[in-house]
């Protein structure tokens, strides 16, 4: 396993710029998620790292080997980069064992195939054909196939998007565990915030061909680098404020800033779970305009008195409790918030 370093990667198709200078460093043995909306360039980045596409400018280094530079292109078959494509893409004419052993020299096949199948929890599935497997099983075979030759890096391209919701969480955990056991350096490309935050050691948010921020999931969520990242990685209440030092005055009352700032106008991001809903008088007066129940939690949509134009939402554990549409309530913000000065 090796670290992956990407520097200043640029790529255009005709006059459409897909990558505009991507920098990314993934330490050895860790899982990085590249998170972005469709069309942000994340799949192109992955294809260049795998060697399926060439970059116009910039460098890709795997461990000590530079695999991509203008004028240097190590072909995919000599990069030692395993790939898990969308929907698995198992070879339909080969058994599970045939798929997993495809990248191995013939004499090493038997034992190693059993070993990796066991790693992904499919011991004994070797003689089956791909069409006899469920979607989740196919995805795990695809992972086993990528891991079998002990690659320097594993790339996963939206590997869970074709699975249904119930299955997705379980397969995610299995894949995470298998990658960790194998000690693999891995890059996961996804548009699903929850997936990126729950699986990765490092999340790189990509927007319009650049990495907007790369940070551990917790930091990314609580201390986003800019407003775009903040709203992309989770539900956010955005408020105009005037800051002074480590405090700011807002429609939701006085707020504590995560970091002291130069005095002046700007915006803050408040997460819904930071907002508590209480009895009138116990905070900023508001009215309940709606509730949305998700099962594990619920969102309470609110309208602040005198600030009808600002959408505010509070998160509650379990079903919405103690509130009904039309109720007069009071809200408070708990904990520090991120401040972004006006440009």
């Amino acid at each position: 396993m090796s670290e992956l370093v990407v520097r200043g990667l640029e790529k255009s198709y005709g006059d459409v710029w897909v990558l505009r200078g991507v920098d990314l460093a993934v330490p050895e043995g860790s899982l990085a998620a590249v998170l972005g909306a469709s069309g942000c360039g994340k799949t192109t980045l992955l294809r260049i790292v795998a060697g399926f596409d060439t970059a116009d400018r910039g460098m890709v280094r795997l461990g000590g080997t530079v695999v991509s530079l203008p004028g240097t292109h190590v072909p995919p078959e000599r990069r030692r980069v395993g790939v898990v494509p969308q929907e698995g893409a198992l070879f339909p004419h080969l058994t599970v064992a045939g798929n997993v052993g495809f990248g191995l020299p013939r004499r090493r096949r038997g034992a190693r195939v059993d070993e990796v199948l066991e790693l992904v929890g499919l011991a004994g599935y070797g003689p089956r054909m791909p069409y006899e497997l469920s979607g989740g099983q196919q995805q795990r075979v695809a992972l086993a196939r990528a891991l079998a030759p002990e690659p320097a890096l594993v790339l996963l391209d939206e590997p869970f998007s074709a699975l249904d919701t119930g299955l997705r969480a379980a397969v995610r955990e299995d894949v995470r565990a298998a990658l960790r056991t194998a000690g693999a350096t891995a890059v996961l490309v996804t548009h699903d915030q929850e997936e990126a935050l729950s699986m990765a050691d490092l999340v790189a948010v990509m927007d319009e061909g650049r990495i907007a921020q790369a940070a551990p999931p917790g930091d990314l969520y609580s201390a986003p680098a800019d407003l775009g990242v903040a709203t992309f990685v989770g539900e956010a209440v955005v408020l105009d404020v005037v800051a002074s030092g480590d405090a700011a005055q807002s429609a939701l009352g006085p707020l504590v800033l995560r970091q002291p700032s130069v005095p002046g106008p700007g915006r803050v991001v408040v997460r819904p779970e930071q907002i508590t809903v209480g009895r009138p008088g116990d905070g900023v007066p508001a009215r309940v305009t709606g509730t949305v129940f998700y099962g594990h939690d619920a969102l309470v949509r609110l309208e602040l008195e005198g600030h009808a134009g600002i959408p505010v939402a509070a998160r509650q554990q379990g079903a919405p409790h103690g509130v009904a549409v039309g109720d007069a309530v009071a809200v408070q913000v708990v904990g520090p918030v991120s401040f972004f000065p006006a440009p």
Partner: protein
Amino acid sequence: MAGPALTHPPVPGTPGARGGGVASRRRTRPPAVLLVPALVAAGVALLPLVYLAVRAFERGPEVAFEIVWQERTLRLVLRSLLLAAVVTGLCLVVGVSLAWLTSRTRVPFRRLLTVLGALPLAVPSYVAAYIWVSFFPRIPPFAGSVLVLTLCTYPYVFLPVRAALQGTDPALEEVARSLGRGRWRTVLTVTLRQVRPAMAAGGLLVGLYVLSDFGAVSLLRFDSLTRVIYTSYRSSFDRTPAAVLGLVLVLVTITIVWAESRSRGRAAQARLGTGAARRHGLVRLGRGGTALALLWAAVVAGLGVAFPLVGLARWLVVGSSAGFDATRVVEAAGSTVAVSALGAALTVVLAIPVGVLAVRYRGRLVSAVEQAAYAGHALPGIVVALALVFFAVRYAFPVYQRTPLLVLAYAVLFLPAAVGAVRASVALSPPVLEEVARSLGRSPFQALRDVTLRVAGPGVAAGAVLVFLTCMKELPATLLLRPTGMQTLATELWSRTTVGAYAAAAPYAALLVVLAAVPTFLLTTRSTTLGGGGER
């Protein structure tokens, strides 16, 4: 002949032509390991056409134009076109009416009628002509050719139109009815409009088949272009007229293919998604209507299927009382299998790089190569044979009247069918599989060999079998190019029939019908099961 023309060549540039809608056709330059053999295939496919042109103008353009501008030539072209037009028109009437009856009405025995409707494909047109001539030696040439060719080729209209009738969305017709159009006006204005692309495609196949047909028109003594080319080649010492007439025939067929591909380009854009999960409601014919429908189907099946089979059976009986030369039959069958197997092998080997290229890459060079490979679609067998004879006599005399030249002719003629099969099967193997194979350490060539061709294998093999069976039935090229002293089933039938030895010809005809029945059977079972409908 126009080849096993049922595999319709996609016309590059039309939406439907992008094999399986593979989005990721690469813009990059194709690797030499594909491009070089594909260029060789394109060269082989174009060789007869190019050399024919060279040979036709060899004695100067004045001589060529003199031949073209003879009144006789013009009359000949018009006569051939008239035959093609009349047969195509009749095929549309027969094919569309039977397709509608078997897919949209409650006429009894629909399944049987469907099979009967496709069955004439199992009778090669020269075999049918042999049977008609053997029973009615005085049959008028034009009427006889119209009758035989219509009965043999209307399935080219019947099958695609029937599939289209089943594939269209019932909602469109329901909407038309709800907007106040009567049943028959809906059939005319909505239903037929929707199946027009299928009618055009089927009509094109019929037209090309008739223009390329050599065996049936010759046995029925109708002087079409193909027959006159053959007799002029055989009887005259000066072979320039044969070359010029061959070129004229090719220009006619190419014009027709080109015109149809243009009209198809527009039709394809107007087509909707396939999306008909629902079945069409079936029209109830009255008692009189049912009787009329059954009578019509019985006449067509009687003339197209029953008469040839019964006639053939009779000659078999007559012939066996006289005693057949069994060794001759076995010998002919053996050499037919041998040259056809070689032909199929060469055709598929040439088709693989072209098909892979067409699915995986794009660009001007790629579509030029693909277009070139489809040249055989517009090249009548007699013309290909003639061009190769000229070429071999001048530049490759050692292979003249030897197996390699005949095998080469088969490759030119049937490359379109093989490329179609390779294309369709390779499109089933998504490019991502090759990428995964690359990431697991395979070179581009190894990825192609170990993954794409393995996945495409069954489809390519089916294409090879189809080409093999088609080679076995081929008459004009075999007649001109067969090695000295070799007889195939088709040439034996030909030589027996031309001297009136009808009973002696019967075993060869029977074997040819059996051979042709195999692809017909596959085709019909596929179209009736996949197409659904029919049984309810």
